[in-house]
């Protein structure tokens, strides 16, 4: 077996110069300090994304993207297909877990200032990936064509329509018409299985390349302690030490997904009826709750702007500022300015948690 591996490596090296790549990866190291735990979340998100791709491909074998058949095809997968219940529930749970780990990864990178020079583009590609992941969540949610999915999509796309100027066009583009219909389902399916995976692949490749090229960032507070001699700079090889630890986490995530699928299977719901009124208490999935609650609390008019548009504008501007943080906070060391940005981050996180919790009041 070792001989076979060596032979394969030689074959690849003769054609693609793989030895150089291997050498580069062998020297990849992970800094060891009290914040090392956060380094695991990027890999965890990637692992869950791979789970999504694999389970998604399996679901593609049975799913039918039309209003007449979508719900029934998911029902068929849940009841008739061998282990279909497992694949479908894992896909739904893993989507939520992935958005959670991506959020943790994003906030940990933010608070540990890993977006500083030279890693600005790593942050930007990461943010694009985050928006793509939210897009996956939004488009995938409609696909079972049940009541919750239908009305969540109706409300969600309606918000786009409130933007002055482009609103009407955006609404028609998202829905494929005036209302949420089979046309919406078709294009959401197209986004979910073709467009977004394509964009995600490009963005992920860029993101991973940058991470490998630039190495792992050390938080400014730790850098300061090392510079002052209060802490020794310790590292761990990525291969195999950190990777083995990563794999422990991945196995644990696999176990958690299996348990969730078996004990809390994802609901089928009732088939969407466009003529029925929206169910009372309809709300989006947890990752959109803070925006939903904000829009509910805004008055119908904010200065001269329509309330809903003001909310969307606010979130868009906040999002743009968040993406541009590496170009605004150019502090290299640990300083008072750094603390201001930390404060803003705490505010953002607190706002999201509070607004999400208020929905359940």
């Amino acid at each position: 077996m070792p001989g076979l591996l060596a032979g394969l490596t030689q074959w690849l090296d003769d054609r693609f110069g793989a030895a150089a790549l291997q050498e580069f990866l062998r020297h990849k190291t992970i800094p060891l300090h009290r914040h090392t735990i956060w380094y695991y979340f990027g890999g965890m998100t990637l692992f869950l994304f791979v789970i999504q791709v694999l389970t998604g491909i399996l679901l593609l074998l049975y799913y039918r993207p039309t209003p007449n058949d979508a719900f029934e095809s998911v029902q068929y997968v849940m009841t008739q297909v061998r282990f279909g219940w497992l694949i479908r529930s894992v896909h739904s749970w893993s989507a939520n877990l992935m958005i959670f780990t991506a959020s943790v990864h994003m906030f940990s990178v933010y608070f540990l200032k890993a977006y500083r020079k030279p890693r600005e583009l790593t942050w930007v590609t990461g943010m694009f990936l985050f928006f793509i992941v939210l897009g996956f969540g939004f488009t995938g949610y409609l696909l079972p064509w049940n009541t919750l999915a239908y009305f969540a999509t109706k409300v969600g796309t309606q918000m786009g329509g409130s933007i002055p100027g482009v609103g009407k066009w955006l609404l028609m583009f998202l829905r494929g018409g005036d209302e949420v219909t089979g046309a919406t389902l078709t294009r959401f399916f197209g986004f979910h299985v073709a467009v977004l995976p394509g964009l995600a692949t490009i963005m992920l490749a860029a993101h991973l390349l940058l991470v490998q090229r630039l190495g792992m960032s050390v938080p400014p507070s730790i850098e300061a302690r090392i510079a002052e001699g209060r802490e020794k700079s310790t590292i761990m090889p990525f291969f195999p030490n950190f990777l083995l630890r990563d794999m422990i986490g991945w196995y644990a995530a696999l176990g958690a997904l299996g348990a969730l699928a078996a004990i809390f299977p994802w609901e089928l719901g009732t088939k969407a009826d466009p003529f029925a009124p929206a169910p009372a208490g309809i709300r989006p999935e947890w990752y959109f709750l803070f925006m939903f609650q904000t829009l509910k609390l805004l008055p119908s008019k904010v200065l001269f702007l329509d309330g809903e548009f003001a909310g969307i504008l606010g979130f868009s501007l906040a999002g743009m500022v968040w993406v541009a943080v590496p170009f605004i906070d150019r502090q290299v060391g640990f300083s008072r300015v750094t603390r201001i940005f930390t404060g803003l981050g705490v505010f953002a996180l607190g706002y999201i948690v509070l607004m999400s919790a208020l929905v359940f009041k």
Partner: protein
Amino acid sequence: MGRIKKVLGSSVVLFLALASPGWTETKDSCVSCHSTLDGALGRPAKDFGSDVHHQAGLICSDCHGGNPEDDSMDAMSPAKGFRGAPAKAKVPEFCGKCHSDGSYMRRYNPKLRTDQLSQYATSVHGQRLKKGDTKVAACVDCHGVHNILAVSDSRAPVYPTNVADTCARCHSDSHSMAEYKIPTDQAAHYQKSVHATILTDGDTSAPTCTTCHGNHGATPPGLTSVANVCGTCHVFFAQLFQKSPHGAAFEEMGLPGCVQCHSNHEILKPSDEWVGVGSKSVCITCHVEGDAGYAAAQKISEDLAKLNQSQQQAENILATAERTGMEVSSARLELSQSNEAIVKARVAVHTLDPAEVGKLTDPGLKSSAKAYEAGTAALHESNLRRKGLGLSLIFIVMAIAGLALKIREMESKPRP
């Protein structure tokens, strides 16, 4: 100065004239005078603003005659056509003068019937009034006098949800009803009925007093007994009952059909316990052990009980399966057929034929058995999944342990 005073004075007079109550485009001395009076003389002027006749553009003189342009007492001169308030016995004709005139009523509301007066004449109220009994209800007793609202107005005394209270004004008064020797508990019984509950919940098609007893006429035409009215809504039940052994037998014995078992005013939601030979059964009111009716009742109630029990068992197991997260929608569809069978069987009870009831309970039993089987399979599958989860978690824990040991082994060796 003088001219200014004249203009000002005329303006004041004009203003006062305009501001007087009940001002309409035409002068109405009835309202302008009666609105200043107290008590019974003043009330009509105050009430009439909300009356449906006022909304239609009618004024006092349209019914009562007289001259509304005359401010003096001459306005109420019989020579000028003043008719005044009619005596109780003349009220139906008073209202009927317009309401029985089709061509007149068509101008205001073509939808309105114009047979109320002729219907009323056939009723007990109408016949007694003709004989001189002024205690009975006439038009104004139910509809009001000067504040008459449309029947479709929920504040009207004759709006479906208010009818029982309107009838009860007299019919629940034991002093008023004493001389007629009729009971006064009908309204109290009705309020406990399932019909009253449905009506209060918003279904205005649910029966109230006038639905069975008629509103202007005594009974709906062509029917000999109020008990026959039930079949106008509960069609299948009535048809099956008529063809059953009880149909002819009840008629012979002078028993009031549906009312015999279901009561007339306090009609409650029936229970399966009413059928059979138990303590709550209506059958044993007449039937005794040993007779054919007793045996039939017993068989029917046993079949119903078996189906109910089977259905409940299936429902319980499917609910348990659902709680564990299993998808049982096709089993639920199967069970809904069993539900349908129960409903149809309860209708078939009115044939009083165990064979007819059995024809419906047997397929119902098959459906609930299938649903139960599906529920059992779902629970079995759920257990299997949890066992599979347990097994895979063991392997996962072993893999994690293996990795942890490998890490420990690797890092305990001194680095080269």
